């Protein structure tokens, strides 16, 4: 059974859908034809995590999410996983096994293009060595229908640094674009200091923000914090996605960060979907939270 895009927003319990329309391109880009499109963002799947206190369906959540995405009509132009594809392990063999299993499962997606990114659980212990064997570069760019996407790696360094080399690479990449170019930055950790005492920050994120700041049309999508969160740094918006394994408390809302236990009365609670529509002509994002059980859209 196919599901229309709007219907998906009402019924699916997993992942995140990001809608974009070429109309939000600034005037300088208006001459080229921009097709409306959307993509789906999934994050923090933690394949290999197996503690049923926090997720009673650890091996079924991701496949169910993929099933929901495959039912979309039309299919998203692409799917992006913003890190923590797998749950960490000290055993190199187990890490590769989890990465391989995750890769096989993600191949079940009908979407023709899938972009992967590492999280600290995938890449911090071995500097991304195993991850690269399966998914390639830790940071990269791609362009889609007039939008420049930059995938930044702020996880393969165990201290959550982007690092001077990658920052230089970012600077050189940005130089090739007009200050009004629409740019989407994909990261795992937030680039701003959301909650340093919880590790919800990038050690040198301020340097990346400094490079991005002259660009007028930048939006950041990230994961890591296992919940929906929205923040603005000057004109740059940051939007986090929910996890597909367990939710975490709101930033600094409790004295000690902890995983939120599985709610048997409300399965998959906290693992819902968010929808972001990009409006025109102001390039404004309309953000919707989807209540999983009530199947209702709530505009933020």
């Amino acid at each position, binding site marked *: 059974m196919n599901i229309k895009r709007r219907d998906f927003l009402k019924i699916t319990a997993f992942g995140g859908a990001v809608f974009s329309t070429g109309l939000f391109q600034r005037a300088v880009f208006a001459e080229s034809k921009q097709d409306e499109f959307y993509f789906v963002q999934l994050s923090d799947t933690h394949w290999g995590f197996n503690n049923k206190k926090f997720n009673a369906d650890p091996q079924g959540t991701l496949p169910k999410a993929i099933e929901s995405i495959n039912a979309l009509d039309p299919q998203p132009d692409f799917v992006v996983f913003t890190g923590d594809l797998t*749950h960490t392990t000290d055993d190199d063999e187990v890490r590769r096994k989890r990465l391989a299993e995750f890769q096989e499962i993600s191949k079940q997606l009908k979407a023709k293009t899938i972009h992967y990114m590492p999280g600290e659980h995938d890449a911090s212990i071995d500097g991304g060595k195993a991850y690269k064997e399966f998914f390639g570069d830790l940071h990269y760019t791609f362009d889609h229908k007039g939008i420049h996407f930059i995938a930044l790696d702020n996880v393969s360094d165990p201290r959550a640094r982007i690092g001077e080399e990658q920052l230089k690479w970012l600077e050189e990449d940005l130089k090739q674009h007009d200050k009004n170019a629409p740019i989407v930055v994909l990261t795992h950790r937030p680039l701003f200091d959301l909650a340093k005492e919880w590790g919800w920050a990038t050690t040198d994120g301020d340097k990346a923000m400094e490079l991005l700041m002259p660009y007028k049309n930048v939006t950041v999508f990230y994961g890591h914090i296992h919940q929906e969160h929205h923040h603005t740094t000057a004109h740059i918006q940051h939007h986090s996605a929910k996890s597909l394994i367990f939710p975490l408390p709101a930033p600094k809302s409790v004295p000690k960060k902890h995983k939120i236990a599985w709610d048997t009365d409300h399965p998959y609670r906290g693992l819902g979907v968010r929808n972001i529509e990009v409006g025109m002509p102001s390039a404004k994002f309309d953000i919707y939270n989807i209540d999983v059980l009530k199947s209702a859209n709530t505009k933020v």
Partner: protein
Amino acid sequence: MKLLKFLLVLVFAILIFSGALMIPSQYNNGDDRKAGSAMGAEVVNDENMVKITASMWKYDPPHIEIKKGKLVILELTSLDRLHGFYIPEFDIRADVMPNKTIRVELMPEKIGNYPFLCDIFCGDGHGEMNGVIHVVD
């Protein structure tokens, strides 16, 4: 002209006696530095030393109570792998390694609770490897 010279000397004398010209203030700074050095050389004993061990994935003890305005030395070591000790509020951090002891000096001036955490990814429970320094009167 004589009157002008007299007035200049008078004004200068007034400034000197009123303390408005703090020429010796550099020496005061010198005294402050000396005081700082003396403080740094304070004898380390059980009273102002807190021993902390880091291991996967906890700090022991996770709660540390210290007094406001009193110098405390945190002595850290790791029981297994490399960890990072980080107190964001004080912008203090250090690598904590196995078989090595490192010391961190701390003299908080404000009462409050100050979280610390491991800032080097160290595995499964890394995200919950943290603690709190309670600064009391």
